[in-house]
């Protein structure tokens, strides 16, 4: 069975610029994948390819096991970073367009969402703040109870209370079996709502893992020696070690996995003190995008 969201070796060139470079990613039903990456890493282009707005130079995309067709959009919702609304139309008009366009549209659900985001349906789109525009886009997206959700910065412009509401909407949808891929600059949101994380850098997918596995494996072992640090032998060559930092008598080994064994190897060199430091997702993210080791 193919995952509801599936990319296989997706590559997108714009002239000589490689925006997306051989990305393969699956998001299973009931799963939430958080996509992180610096600006220009290729997140939005990946979304465009997924939705058929851009044609990949090579690679394959499947939504719910099949290539995109107009019918795919009956169960797929997309929230772009900048919500595209009709300026002179009211929020109610936008909902009416959805009612006419989607068999899966649920008016009761739409009313719940309007109340959740405190939106006045009689307001025209051009009078809405950035956060309210995002809220309208989210209301439309969730009103069809989609089985596949693709959200580009879904909380941009929203206050912290409504940001939390967005996470709860994603969690509720995933608990009911939806597959969700969302990008965010807020690592804390990914840490809460996602079970897996994908990190892009310069068009490439450099991390694709379960968050818990990532946190379990990636740690810093810090050893302080009495004098200058001794010869570390081939520690840096150990595939479980991402990087070694050394300042005076302090040695820090960043591990990808097997932190206990690496700690034992360092302990055998008789340090004065040794400790293991847990890393949160933000630190893991920074390690991934700043280093060249991966």
């Amino acid at each position, binding site marked *: 069975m193919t995952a509801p969201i599936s990319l296989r070796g997706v590559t997108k060139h714009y002239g000589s610029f490689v925006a997306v470079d051989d990305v393969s990613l699956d998001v299973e039903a*009931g*799963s*939430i994948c958080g996509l992180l990456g610096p600006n220009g890493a290729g997140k939005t282009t990946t979304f465009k390819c997924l939705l058929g707005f851009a044609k990949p130079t090579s690679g394959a995309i499947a939504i719910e096991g099949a290539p995109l067709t107009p019918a795919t959009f009956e169960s797929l919702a997309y929230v772009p970073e900048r919500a595209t609304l009709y300026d002179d139309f009211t929020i109610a008009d936008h909902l009416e367009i959805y009612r006419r366009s989607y068999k899966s549209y649920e008016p009761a659900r739409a009313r719940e969402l309007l109340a959740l985001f405190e939106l006045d349906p009689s307001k025209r789109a051009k009078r809405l703040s950035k956060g309210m525009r995002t809220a309208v886009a989210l209301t439309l997206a969730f009103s069809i109870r989609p089985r596949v959700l693709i959200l580009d910065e879904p909380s941009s412009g929203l206050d912290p209370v409504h940001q*939390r509401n967005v*996470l*709860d909407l994603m*969690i*509720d949808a*995933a*608990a*009911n079996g939806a597959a969700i891929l969302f990008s965010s600059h807020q690592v*804390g949101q990914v*840490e*809460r*709502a*996602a*079970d897996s994380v994908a990190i892009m850098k310069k068009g490439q997918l450099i991390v694709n893992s379960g*968050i*818990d596995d990532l*946190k*379990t494996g990636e*740690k810093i072992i810090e050893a*302080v020696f009495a004098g200058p640090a001794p010869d570390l032998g081939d520690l840096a060559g150990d595939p479980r070690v991402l990087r070694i930092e050394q300042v005076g008598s302090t040695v820090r080994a960043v591990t990808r996995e097997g932190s206990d064994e690496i700690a034992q190897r360092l302990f055998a060199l008789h340090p*004065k*003190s*040794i*400790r293991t*430091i*847990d*890393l*949160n*997702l*933000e*630190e893991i993210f920074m390690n991934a995008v700043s280093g060249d080791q991966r």
Partner: protein
Amino acid sequence: MPAIFTVDPRSGVPLYLQLIEQIKRAIALGTIAPGEQLPTVKALALELTVNPNTVARVYRELERDGVIDTSPGRGSFVRTDGAGVEARRAVADVARAAFETAVREAKSLGLSREETLELMARTIARWYETENE
């Protein structure tokens, strides 16, 4: 469920481990009673704003550890046989790990065996004193 859980997503400790520890602690302390029903995966995920698969993993591991029973369609319940024993063992593990960390820290800071023992004795005297009176 009368117990209150909080998770810290910004911690380096995986969320599922944080939750397992808290639920076992609540059972060991009796704030969740044997036979009591746990919230559904979806309800707990929404209450804490954490991923549903994370909560599902917590329940799977608690079942594997013999702390809860999950039957399809009925829900998850704290076991009446031995859940408390299992939970107390888990809590003792947490305490042992904390102790281990403290002693290792003392040693790495250069304290002698005698100094560490003395520190421990003073700490124990402070926290257990009221119980003996």
